[in-house]
């Protein structure tokens, strides 16, 4: 049995936050409930499924707002399908937390089961789902459906959510939720004249307090902000970033710092990791990231998405690097006037300074074993999802669309407090995704072990941890047959 799609998702926490959106209603974007754009449609087209009843199941990420938004909007599709195509569709919803969703999807798909018809996958799982033939290749479908031939905001979108293998032409997913890193800043603190004065006196520079200030802020100056607000005696710390062993929590910010400083993690063509990941420069990036722990509350080495939300909403930190997708959870009715969402800091000096942060977000993928009827409904659903009206409604409810038309709308920036930063980070070159390789979860696990081992001090040197990760990943890719070279002889000595 499955869940009503119309249920209140998760806890009752979402509802009060709807008040947030009242602001956007004033911008002329409101009034788009489901009814108007159904009426707009003309007579029913002839549809092979007309008159039938179909039950669809969506597998999404537990407690992840964009996933539950997709589900909560599904009744609108049911109305739409009834009106336009003449069939009845009901949606069921199953979920698993981030760290377990791939497990849930894979164990089901391996049985060729139709338990889940449409799946919200994390972007890095594309390869692992595509390689065994579990999900449908979408090239033909996109070619046949005009609605799916969208102009995406940037290549980053296409590379992150749609393509596997990297650089190829095969398309396996379509973006459900776009997501980038953003820096959440306590507006009430940075705009406080007293704080600004004290900061000026201490560092001889202006306390960054606007979007533009942060756009131009580099890591060195950001460190001053963190240091300035680290006041344990007042129960306030400078920042919260993710360091946890769970899933990709420590990896995302750490890779962001490596990339921004000009480092890389592998060669996606040859599968070479050794010598690319374990460089002195990347080791320095790890040392830098570890040194920031002193600006964070004790226990920050266990911070993931959820823990960050806890410390942030309880007002314990002045800044927080967090996904744009959890904006609705970060910005509560109590703190909604105190939050500024800005681009995270650049690395490097002057003109050379740049930022390349990790991509987040999830694509829709379709179960390859869907029977004809379910596949047809799934494709109808995607067609509906990318209608401009649906996309706008999704944005208004707190989701992040990825198509150029919606994002270029002048009103988009003001729909939600994080939209401007999100769009900024989605510009070409500012964000990228890591591996889409099928052995992703294994490579991630050793990387997480290596990173957290160093961050918590159980491995002394960053280079040692990096060597271990590089050797293990090289071995994984070599075993898989993807990398042409196995681990080098030096690897026999690599350990945590």
């Amino acid at each position, binding site marked *: 049995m499955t869940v009503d799609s119309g249920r209140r998702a998760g806890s009752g926490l979402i509802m009060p936050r709807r008040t947030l959106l009242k602001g956007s209603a004033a911008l002329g974007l409101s009034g788009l409930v489901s009814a108007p754009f159904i009426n707009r449609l003309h007579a029913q087209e002839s549809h092979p499924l007309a008159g039938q009843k179909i039950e669809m199941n969506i597998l999404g990420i537990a407690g992840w707002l964009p996933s539950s938004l997709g589900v909560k909007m599904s009744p609108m599709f049911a109305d739409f399908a009834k009106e336009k195509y003449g069939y009845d569709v009901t949606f069921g919803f199953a979920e698993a937390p981030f*760290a377990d969703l*791939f*497990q849930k999807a*894979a*164990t089901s798909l*391996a049985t060729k089961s139709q338990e889940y018809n449409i799946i919200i996958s994390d972007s890095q799982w594309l390869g*692992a789902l595509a*390689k*065994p*033939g579990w999900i449908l290749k979408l090239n033909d479908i996109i070619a046949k459906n005009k609605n799916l031939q969208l102009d995406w905001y940037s290549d980053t979108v296409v590379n992150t959510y749609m393509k596997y293998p990297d650089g190829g032409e095969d398309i396996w997913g379509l973006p459900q939720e776009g997501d980038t890193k953003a820096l959440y800043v306590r507006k009430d603190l940075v705009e406080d004249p007293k704080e600004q004065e004290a900061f000026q006196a201490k560092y001889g520079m202006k306390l960054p307090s606007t979007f533009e200030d942060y756009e131009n802020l580099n890591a060195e100056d950001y460190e001053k902000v963190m240091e300035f607000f680290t006041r344990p005696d007042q129960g306030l710390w400078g920042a919260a970033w993710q360091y*946890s*062993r*769970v899933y990709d929590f420590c990896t995302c910010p750490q890779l962001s710092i490596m990339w921004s400083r000009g480092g890389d993690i592998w060669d996606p063509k040859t599968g070479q990791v050794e010598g690319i990941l374990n460089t002195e420069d990347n080791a320095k990036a790890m040392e830098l990231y570890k040194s920031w722990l002193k600006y964070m*509350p*004790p*226990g*920050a*080495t*266990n911070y993931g998405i959820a823990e960050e939300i*806890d*410390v942030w909403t*309880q007002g*314990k930190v002045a800044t927080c690097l967090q996904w744009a997708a959890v904006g609705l959870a970060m910005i509560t009715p109590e703190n909604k006037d105190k939050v500024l969402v800005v681009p995270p800091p650049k690395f490097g000096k002057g003109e050379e300074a740049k930022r390349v942060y990790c991509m987040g977000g999830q694509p829709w993928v379709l179960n390859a074993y869907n029977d004809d009827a379910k596949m047809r409904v799934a494709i109808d659903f995607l067609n509906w999802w990318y209608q401009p009206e649906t996309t706008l409604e999704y944005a208004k409810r707190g989701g992040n669309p990825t198509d150029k038309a919606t994002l270029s709308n002048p009103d988009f920036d003001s729909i939600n407090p994080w939209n401007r930063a999100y769009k900024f980070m989605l510009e070409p070159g500012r964000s990228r995704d890591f591996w889409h390789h*099928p*052995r992703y*979860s*294994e490579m991630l*696990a050793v990387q*997480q*072990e*290596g990173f*957290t*081992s*160093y*961050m*918590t*001090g*159980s*491995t002394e040197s960053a280079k040692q941890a990096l060597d271990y990760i590089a050797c*293990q990943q090289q*071995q994984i890719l070599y075993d*898989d047959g993807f990398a042409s070279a196995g681990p080098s002889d030096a690897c026999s000595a690599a*350990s*945590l």
Partner: protein
Amino acid sequence: MSTNSISRALDNRKFLVFALLAPVLAFFIVFNTIPTLWLLGLSFHKFSLISGTPPEFFGIRNFQDIFFNKNNIWGDLRRTFLFVVVGVSIQTVLGVLLGFLFWGSKDMPGRRVALTLLFTPMVLTPIATGTFFRFIYDPTFGALNFLLSGLFGTGVIDFLGNPSIAYWAVLAVDCWMWTPFMTLMTLAALGSVPKAELEAAEIDRLSWPQRVSMVIWHHGKFILMLGILLRTIDAFKTLDLIIPMTKGGPGQTTRLVAVELNKQSFESFNMGWSSAVSVLLLLISIAMTSIFIYILNRRRKAG
């Protein structure tokens, strides 16, 4: 009895034996023998569920890799053995102590309620225990840090983030959950001592150590050893407590063998490698159980 009826009875008996055993045997063959053979077969193959290719015969490569410490599997085993030895020892000592204390409190008001409260940790859902202990241990919001700082003036302790503490913090939760079980086993063991012999010992004015060594140990050791055996087996398998608390981190510090196996089999879907590790674990646990059962039987016969 005529020969005829004897043979009939025998037939009947054979049939009866079969009929009585059949259901369990059926279960055993379908859910144990077949999977175990499957496991054994796979352990000689290279097989990943996500590669899209069928299992490929691999000879003993998987076992060679285990021997040469691929994925640091020996580190996991070392941590697991330490976990079992230290954990079960603490639980046994504390549990037996509490068992003796409660044994002597037959007239205590509300004894049944007190025992129920004591036994509650072991019936709590491990997945919830792990999640909530992460909260209790939390340096910012956790109750334990608040309590310790208030009582002993310790600074903020990052129980699960500090690699030199995390392992012991997880072990402590395991002890909290399972010490009551050893108390239960001790109470059962003490209950199995015949009252007459205890009264005789009292009349003979035997000292407490004498009573324990001469009367109680003699009757109670079987049950106590069984308790230790069950705890050893379960501690060896510890998984769902660790997953929500640390997921094996920080680094690899709390990565017990079951945690790593779970990752390899159901996150990475390396079924061949995981089968080989499982076969190794099966051999280890058969060895451990054999030793225990040997000790049990010897003691029982000697006693």
